[in-house]
């Protein structure tokens, strides 16, 4: 028997592969002498009490993981938020063009009947309101998408 075969046989004995160990030990006097040592190791390893997790450990882990799970949930919605923003931004040039036409027309009409300063003031207020509404609309997109994803997740998980 060569050393490798002896290693194989005794390792099989240590790790409980009885058939392979017996086949080797039957024909190897040297390993039969070492058998007691390996069996003693096996006995010691087997006698070790099984470590038991303390009660409440899982709950502690779940509490600690809660912020990370929340972060995962937010990140999971990023692709949907990106898609929604792209979809919302697509018509923006058209909206801006029409708004610009309305503002120009309003300014032209108002400046015929009102003093220039007052006409400019009214048109400026109108434009500012439009810009604010657009900004609020686009700011709401990620919030609405995240909320929708959360609701979908709650529905799918009862």
């Amino acid at each position, binding site marked *: 028997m060569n050393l490798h075969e002896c290693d194989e046989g005794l390792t099989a004995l240590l790790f409980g592969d009885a058939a392979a160990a017996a086949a080797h030990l039957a024909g190897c006097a040297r390993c039969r002498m070492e058998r007691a040592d390996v069996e003693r190791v096996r006995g010691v390893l087997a006698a070790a009490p099984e470590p038991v997790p303390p009660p409440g450990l*899982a709950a502690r882990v779940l509490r600690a993981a809660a912020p990370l*799970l929340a972060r995962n949930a937010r990140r999971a919605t990023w692709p949907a938020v990106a898609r929604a923003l792209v979809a919302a931004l697509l018509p923006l040039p058209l909206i801006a063009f029409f708004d610009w036409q309305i503002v120009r027309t309003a300014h032209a009409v108002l400046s015929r009947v009102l003093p220039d300063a007052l006409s400019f003031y009214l048109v400026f207020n109108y434009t500012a309101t439009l810009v604010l509404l657009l900004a609020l609309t686009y700011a709401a997109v990620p919030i609405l998408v995240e909320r929708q994803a959360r609701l979908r997740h709650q529905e799918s*998980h009862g």
Partner: protein
Amino acid sequence: MATDEALIAAVAGGDGSALAELCRRWERPLFRFIDRHTGGRDVEDLYQETWLRVVRAARRFDPERRFSTWLFQIALNLCRDWHRRPPPEPVQVDDVATTDADVDAALDARRLLAALPEPQRSAVVLRYYHDLGEDEIAAVLDCPRGTVKSRLHNAMRRLAALARK
């Protein structure tokens, strides 16, 4: 019943109930692995940190791989880091006992495992206590199967020599 791989995908989406289910399934094996690797020290902290890393890295989990292999790899890396931390607490197996009567009492599994170099200890714990095959151990330890074999052989020789003393 959802597979571990499906559950970790749900964890990547922030699902707490999926994490609870994974914890329930793997609580004992993981706890045992860490306990045997560190000799019972700092087990709860390492156990918790393993799960936190699982949650952090859930998005990067490769669904082609087995969850258990990935979980043990994370735990193993944490255990390795733990062993590198100062101050180490050396276990002097040679000093434990000299008479035959003392040997059996003193040579407990923890001391035996602590006497092994870390790569051999990992292989022995996974083979003996978790009943993993050589291929699975090689996947966890990220080394060739032949290396696992030689580590197990060397560990067996070393443990037998300790038992002989």
